[in-house]
């Protein structure tokens, strides 16, 4: 591992790994030791999961907001938008039906 690019990139991977590790340990700890409850816990888990997904995207998949051709980034955002519509819609509709029948 002589070349400097290589080393700095490896450090980035390690940094990502460290962040991901933290973002995993915290929610597991919270649930295992019952440190939080109910809605607050659910929201914390969700936020940490989203944070971890961002970490993976940034450090492992090397997605970032700069330097990229816009058309490619659009693909990912567009997918998130459509998936959001579909998943949110499904939960909304099915949730509503469940309360009414």
């Amino acid at each position, binding site marked *: 591992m002589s*070349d400097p*690019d*290589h080393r700095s*990139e*490896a450090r980035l*991977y*390690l940094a*990502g*790994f460290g962040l*991901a*590790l933290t973002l*995993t340990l915290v*929610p*597991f700890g919270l*649930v*295992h030791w*019952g440190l939080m*409850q*109910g809605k607050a*816990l*659910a929201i914390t*888990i*969700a936020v*940490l*999961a989203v944070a*971890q*997904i961002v970490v*993976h*995207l940034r450090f*492992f*998949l*090397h*997605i970032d907001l700069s*330097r*990229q*051709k816009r058309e*490619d*980034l659009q*693909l*990912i955002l567009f*997918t998130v938008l*459509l*998936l959001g519509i*579909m*998943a949110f819609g*499904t*939960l909304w509709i*099915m*949730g509503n039906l*469940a309360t009414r029948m």
Partner: protein
Amino acid sequence: MSGSNLHPGLNLGARHGSAHEGAETVVFGFWIFLMSDLVIFGLVFASYLTVANPLGMAGGPGPADAFDLRSIFVQTMILLTSSLTFGFATLALRHEKGRTVIAGWLGVTLLLGLAFLTLELRDFAHMIEVGAVPQRSGFWSAFWGLVPLHGLHVALGCLWIAVMLAQMALLGLVPVVKTRLLRLGLFWHFLDLIWVAIFSIVYLGGLMP
């Protein structure tokens, strides 16, 4: 990182010449495929959430009866580490560290993947024992539709790693092999992403106090 990225995410780097340029099309195509796959997962997740309630469980076992947080934790650690080791394989590829180094990291990743699958299968066996089978309720159907789907992806990823090891040995690091390794990397990291959602929603969500 070294300048000219052609597409988002993993790049080979300009020094790889035609392989680097060739990657533009195939990697973009693979991204689109992953996004399509993501929609599949997203909808299975949504379906799972619609039955994660007493009505969906139909009087059968619930998450607390069948999940083992400790095992899930270990699986999570394994998968996370495998992402790192795959990352090192990619770095070795980018910086031309030679076939053996790349193959070494890939081998470690493969072993981690297999370890993950072993533990997961053990968990499944336990679930079957306590009656948390898909035939029991809508909830367990959704669970068995979701988590093993991820497991299947991991298994395919392992198969793919094995194929790439063989291709590296037989064909050498020709451009197609390089771009395939790049795509395999995307796939592997993508699986880890899905797993984050699974352990957060299915396991932690299911075992929340």
